[in-house]
């Protein structure tokens, strides 16, 4: 009961504050349209936003002035999140600033009109790509290398059980976690990228063919896709992976190839739907009719007339699809049927290190280990989505 009274009291106070803010604004600016035409909902929003910001600032102040290990631990995650948020924002801002003056005229113009979220996304994707490509050079140790020191704590401080050689510590059988995280980029991201490309090749080809030719081919492919889409994709993938595991036997590379094929086929159904819908809109254009009347063949129609006009939505879908594929692989690995050990993979790491989360109260550094792998997944997903949003916005803006 008490909590409800508190919530209602806070809401009423915020409402009054919002009203006062608008009233004061009207008086102070002599009825500028901004304050004059402001609805109460917007004024309330400003008050709420200000209150949340204030709470964040006071809590952060408490966190940096916290005394004693228990207090510091209490604010550990909050403080880390806020600090990394600020660091990433500044990095993205600088990244955008640099590319406004470096590069070709085209990219400079691109970065001038870019929102901060998109430049953050591009920066993160570039970092991931760099890490994935040069994993072997960057990583201090091999991903399968086993050391005598097991369960080394992260932080590199020998006093609390760390080791400067292993800045993020080692796992239960003594593998360096930093190296595994870096190699994970190569395995998880690389396999996801290959799978997405394959899904687009399959789905895009059939989608455009169905849109251009229509008739029984369209019916046949579309209905088959409907059947595949009717089965929940993760369950379907699990089922097929179980069968594939039996076929592959002990050959782990073959199992990975099977996994790529299975996820590509399942995800190509979504790509097919999009390619067909976009294709259908383009096929009715007069320029396609003109090309048909010229006597052009199917290949020219699809690759030279339709494809260039479908790149914007397909590219945006590529970004989203990549995230889904990436999450599916991580989920399958987490469930134990995806990328097989000893290959490092973020999904597997989350599962293996999962129980450390229990130490959150007294050793937040240890508890952050599974969160690092999960965060690596989340960060890439967010980054890709930012870029996709921006591209969608741009391509729809061009249509006007």
């Amino acid at each position, binding site marked *: 009961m008490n909590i409800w009274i508190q919530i209602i009291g806070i809401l009423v106070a915020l409402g009054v504050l919002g009203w006062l803010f608008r009233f004061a604004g009207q008086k102070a600016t002599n009825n500028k*349209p901004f304050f*004059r035409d402001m609805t109460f909902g917007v004024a309330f929003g400003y008050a709420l936003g200000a209150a949340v910001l204030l709470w964040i600032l006071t809590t952060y102040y408490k966190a940096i002035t916290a005394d004693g290990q228990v207090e510091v631990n209490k604010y550990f995650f909050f403080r880390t999140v806020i600090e990394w948020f600020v660091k990433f924002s500044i990095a993205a801002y600088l990244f955008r600033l640099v590319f406004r003056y470096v590069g070709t005229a085209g990219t400079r113009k691109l970065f001038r009109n870019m929102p901060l979220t998109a430049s953050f996304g591009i920066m993160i994707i570039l970092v991931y790509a760099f890490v994935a490509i040069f994993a072997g050079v960057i990583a201090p140790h091999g991903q399968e290398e086993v050391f005598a020191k097991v369960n080394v704590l992260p932080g590199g401080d020998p006093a609390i059980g760390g080791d400067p050689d292993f800045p993020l510590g080692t796992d239960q059988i003594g593998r360096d976690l930093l190296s595994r995280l870096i190699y994970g980029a190569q395995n998880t991201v690389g396999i996801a990228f290959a799978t997405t490309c394959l899904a687009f090749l399959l789905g895009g080809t059939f989608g455009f063919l169905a849109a251009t030719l229509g008739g029984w081919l369209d019916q046949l492919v579309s209905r088959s896709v409907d059947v595949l889409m009717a089965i929940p994709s993760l369950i379907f993938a699990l089922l097929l992976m179980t069968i594939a595991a039996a076929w592959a036997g002990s050959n782990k590379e073959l199992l990975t190839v099977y996994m790529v094929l299975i996820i590509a086929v399942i995800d190509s159904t979504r790509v097919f739907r999009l390619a067909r819908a976009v294709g259908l809109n383009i096929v009715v254009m*007069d320029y396609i009719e003109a090309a048909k*009347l010229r*006597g052009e063949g199917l290949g020219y129609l699809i690759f030279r007339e339709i494809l*260039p006009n479908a790149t914007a939505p397909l590219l945006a879908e590529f970004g989203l699809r990549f995230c889904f594929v990436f999450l599916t692989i991580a989920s399958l690995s987490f469930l134990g049927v995806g990328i097989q050990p000893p290959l490092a993979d973020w999904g597997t790491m989350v599962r293996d290190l999962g129980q450390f989360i229990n130490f959150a109260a007294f050793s937040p550094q240890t508890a952050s280990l599974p969160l690092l792998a999960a965060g690596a997944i989340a960060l890439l997903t967010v980054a890709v989505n930012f870029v996709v949003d921006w591209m969608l916005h741009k391509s729809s803006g061009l249509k006007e």
Partner: protein
Amino acid sequence: MSADDPLLSVKGLKIEGRSDETWNPIINGASFDLQKGEVMGLIGESGAGKSTMGLAAMGFTRDGCRISAGTVMFDGVDLVTASAADKRALLGSRIAYVAQSAAASFNPAHRLIDQHTEGPTQHNVMSRAESEADGIELYRKLRLPNPEEIGFRYPHQVSGGQLQRAMTAMAMACRPELIIFDEPTTALDVTTQIEVLASIREIVEEYNTAAIYITHDLAVVAQMSDKIKVMLKGDEVEEADTRTMLSDPKEEYTKSLWAVRSFQRPSKPAVHTSATPVISVQNVSAAYGKVPVLHDVSFDIHEGRTVAVVGESGSGKSTAARCITGLLPPTQGHIEFDGQMMPLDYRKRDRMQLRQAQMIYQMADTALNPRKTIGELIGRPVQFYMGLTGNEKRRRVEHLLEEIELEPTQYINRLPSELSGGQKQRIGIARALAAEPKFIICDEVTSALDQLVAEGILRLLAKLQDELNLSYMFITHDLATVKSIADEVVVMKDGRVIEQGPKDDMFTPPHHPYTDLLLSSVPEMDPDWLTNLLNERGVDNIGDAAVDKM
């Protein structure tokens, strides 16, 4: 406000639009006054700022635009600085707006009457029941069929002309003092247009409503307005009352607008009866699925001649073109090219046969692949049919660009989006010419263009015909275009050929009654034309009503 103060007074209005991070002027200072009950025609080409100005008269700008200077005084209130709440009280009740496309402006999910009563109930002018009764009264005044019942239909259940009138009724619902009409008849057929024009004029007079009538059609504006304001690229050109403006325009630009309709090709000698026609359409019938759309259509097109195919939307003009190109194989009859039978399906025609018949489309926007440069667009047929590559291809493309009067070096690497509407249409012509055809189908090629630009395209087509001895099938609903370019005319209605013959015969009486109706529905520059026509024929013998009687 005293009695002789204007209802609407716009002074020094400047509007800017944002693109490429800078504010570019759209209107550079416009001023005008509008008295109670006065109708002002606002004319100019597309891009002249007519619509922007119409919206600004309501104190409104589109997204990305702003009013940077000037005032819009409506009955003592400055709409530029008025608060959102003040504007809400005025818009809809005292100022109303009729958009170009009624079909796109009605909410398809609600009945007409429900949308009609929204304004009056919102502004507390009438109760819902009163407003409904009033709506029926307005429908009757606008001569909509079945006024009691039509309001209970959904927008897709009534025709385009009726919808436009229903929209005018909706604008009238609160008896506003000012209505802004933004090209309300541009998308309609001539016979439908005349009906809408007559209704709008009548109801505006009856309620003494002031109006701003935006259009690019001079003949229409001559019928509707008391005074005319001409705009060019955001600048005012001149303003005067309608009769003065028509008889004695001051500015060069206005004079050139007035002169557009005078373009006329000399008649050609009659075709030798024994000559083989380039295209001969013989007893063609066609259907979309099971719905028949063409019935026993026959006509010939001779070398170096232009045959205009006219008719309203739905008359089967474009379907006839689709039959000739082979996109819609006819169910009966056949098509001969130079005396040779053509396969009916385009897929069965060889490259030579496809090359000989080319097509130019109405919407150059959708007819040119937006991702290809002009050089690629024109170069493809050159390479595909003529087998030219490299420098030879480039030279041919440059030659074609010169032919259509565009500077090759300047345009060859541009994308279609970097061209104006008229230039795009010229590229469409060049692409058709690149195949070196004998015969070109022009499907409403000028109807999406401004009159001055359209005239340029017509002149170009005429020049090319003289140079290359081309034959044109010219599909259009605009009889002014027919008069200027055609040698022979084919009139179509409901998928049948009603009348055909040389142009001079077609434009001199006696006509088939339908041809007569079409011809008499084309607005003329004379400001008394509509009044005379109404007096002569009576309100029930114009437009759709007259078509239905046939």
